[in-house]
């Protein structure tokens, strides 16, 4: 059996090897991330059936929990690491052809660090370790956002860095408080003793932790870095940031809220924050002209929806949130990836310059359409069962308030539909702008290395959309993993 620690160790190690390898022979470095992710994918797949029965607690220093740092490979962790590996692999394949300029070896190295950070975050059971992986993820994304070193990239990187640094400082303060209160950093241990401390004292670290992780999770007032960073990063990085990085942040928030604090009481607050995030995100996206910025705002909207679903704090709600995490990861990475080469070909991120792309790059445009439809939540794409589950969870309450909230959420969906349908029309049915050169019309499709991940993502979106039960089998246990505090404590610390 594969040890879950390898899920972290292999990419991390390979990430360190890449620069060395790059010194000798740069060319093969391009394939290393893909290889690492293949390993992660396979390992996660192997692990998944096992951890579904019982989470696997890995002791790293030979001490049983709560001492020392340990990993918990539960259904949620392995499931998310599977998702990370999957999206990471596809983006890595895409990057083989896409990333050609600049310090390529460093890109791949940082890319692996980013994935390591994300994987580590979802697998660790230690609060400080969570912070460390979080920082790995953040720092590598700061760097990757500025990869091209252009105006927009550096500017957004700087802003991202400022906000991220403040955020991680807040997390650290929160961890300090928690440690001061409990004297332990094992999440299970904290969770077990949570009732021994007065709520007022408990709230302060929670506020710091939520705010700190919230910066990466991009909930409403903390997400100002996101549209900048996502829109000016290289498209492959945008894909992974939107698909994975913010999900990792969300995971951290959810872990803190549900597993450590069991915070049902502030669920309504989370719900409201989710709805606000959703509305602000979708509205900001509504009249965007920059395609990647629009996609970034749309990510904010989707995050809002996920937070809304989390805020429902029911099994079905969390299941829906996880479903949305998967669906958004697939769809948004698909969108960024397919848009990547369109931008590359036209040299502009204006939506109007992408008009007529349906003719010039039919496969990419088709896949973009699939991704967009999935995000809007149209069947038979994965977005539909996801959104369906969330709304089902919200209406499960049979409470007029929740019905009204669902109405507001669906307003967001309509706005989202409005701008995505506009783009889809532009791609397929509008005449290309005057400046486009129709002479090369046939040779403009993205290269195979890009088409393979794009098509795979599209196929996945359709397949899961038609048979959502392949996913729901795993989402149920994963949701329980997140929600069922007692079981988590039991698994980690023993009876």
């Amino acid at each position, binding site marked *: 059996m594969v040890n879950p620690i390898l899920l972290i160790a292999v990419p991390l190690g390979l990430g360190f090897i890449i620069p060395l390898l790059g010194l000798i022979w740069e060319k093969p470095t391009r394939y290393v991330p893909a290889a690492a992710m293949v390993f992660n994918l396979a390992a996660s797949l192997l692990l998944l059936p096992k951890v579904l029965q019982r989470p696997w607690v890995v002791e790293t220093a030979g001490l049983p929990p709560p001492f020392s740092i340990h990993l918990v490979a539960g259904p949620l962790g392995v499931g998310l690491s599977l998702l990370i590996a999957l999206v990471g692999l596809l983006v890595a394949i895409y990057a083989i052809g896409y990333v050609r300029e600049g310090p390529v070896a460093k890109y791949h190295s940082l890319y692996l660090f980013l994935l390591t950070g994300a994987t580590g975050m979802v697998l660790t059971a230690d609060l400080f370790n969570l912070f460390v992986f979080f*920082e790995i993820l953040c720092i590598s994304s*700061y760097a990757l956002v500025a990869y091209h070193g252009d105006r927009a990239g550096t500017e957004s990187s700087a802003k991202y860095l400022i906000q991220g640094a403040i955020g991680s400082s807040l997390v650290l303060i929160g961890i300090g408080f928690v440690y001061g209160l409990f004297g332990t950093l094992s999440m299970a241990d904290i969770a077990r003793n949570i009732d021994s401390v007065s709520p007022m004292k408990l709230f302060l670290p929670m506020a710091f932790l939520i705010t700190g992780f919230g910066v990466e999770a991009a909930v409403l007032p903390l997400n100002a870095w996101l549209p900048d960073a996502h829109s000016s990063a290289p498209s492959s990085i945008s894909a992974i940031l939107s698909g994975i990085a913010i999900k990792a942040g969300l995971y951290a928030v959810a872990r803190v809220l549900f597993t450590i604090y069991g915070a049902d009481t502030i669920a309504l607050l989370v719900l409201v924050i989710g709805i606000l995030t959703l509305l602000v995100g979708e509205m900001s996206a509504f009249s965007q002209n920059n395609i990647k910025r629009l996609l970034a705002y749309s990510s904010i909207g989707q995050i809002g929806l996920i937070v809304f679903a989390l805020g429902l704090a029911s099994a079905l709600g969390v299941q829906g949130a996880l479903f949305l995490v998967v669906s958004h990861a697939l769809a948004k990475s698909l969108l960024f990836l397919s848009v990547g080469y369109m931008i590359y070909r036209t040299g502009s991120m204006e939506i109007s310059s992408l008009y007529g792309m349906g003719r010039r790059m039919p496969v990419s445009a088709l896949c973009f359409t699939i991704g967009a439809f999935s995000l809007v939540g149209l069947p038979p794409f994965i977005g539909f069962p996801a959104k369906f589950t969330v709304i089902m969870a919200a209406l499960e309450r049979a409470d007029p308030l929740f019905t009204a909230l669902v109405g507001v959420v669906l307003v967001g969906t309509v706005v989202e539909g409005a701008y995505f349908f506009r783009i889809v029309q532009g791609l397929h049915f509008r005449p290309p702008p005057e400046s486009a050169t129709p002479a090369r019309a046939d040779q403009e499709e993205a290269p195979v290395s890009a088409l393979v991940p794009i098509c795979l993502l599209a196929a996945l979106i359709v397949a899961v959309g038609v048979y959502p039960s392949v996913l729901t089998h795993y989402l149920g246990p994963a949701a329980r993993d997140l929600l069922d505090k007692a079981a988590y404590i039991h698994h980690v610390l023993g009876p």
Partner: protein
Amino acid sequence: MSFLADYVHYIGCFALVLIGLYIVLVKTNLVKVIIGINLIDTGVNLFLVSVGYIRMGTAPIFSEDGAAGKQMVDPVPQALVLTAIVIGVSVVALGLSVAIRLYEHYGTLDLRKIRELKW
């Protein structure tokens, strides 16, 4: 007065954090902002250390004094702080390198003028 004495390190570290925050919020020069971030980091690190600090405690080494148990300073925060310092340093380093790049592009470090990405 004893309160002040007991909590002086907390007050100090939060003062550092707040000063850093003030800089980040008010100053518009990117380098100053990074300095602010660094100050916050320092403050936070100080806070972490002081969480585990016991007045007049011993070093967390298995010496004979320490084996007696009570007065040993908690080693975990110190380990954490080490990590945090490393992280902080790398963030600052990255920030400074980005600042250099920004200056190349914009010819200024004034964040009020580096506002091409908005809305």
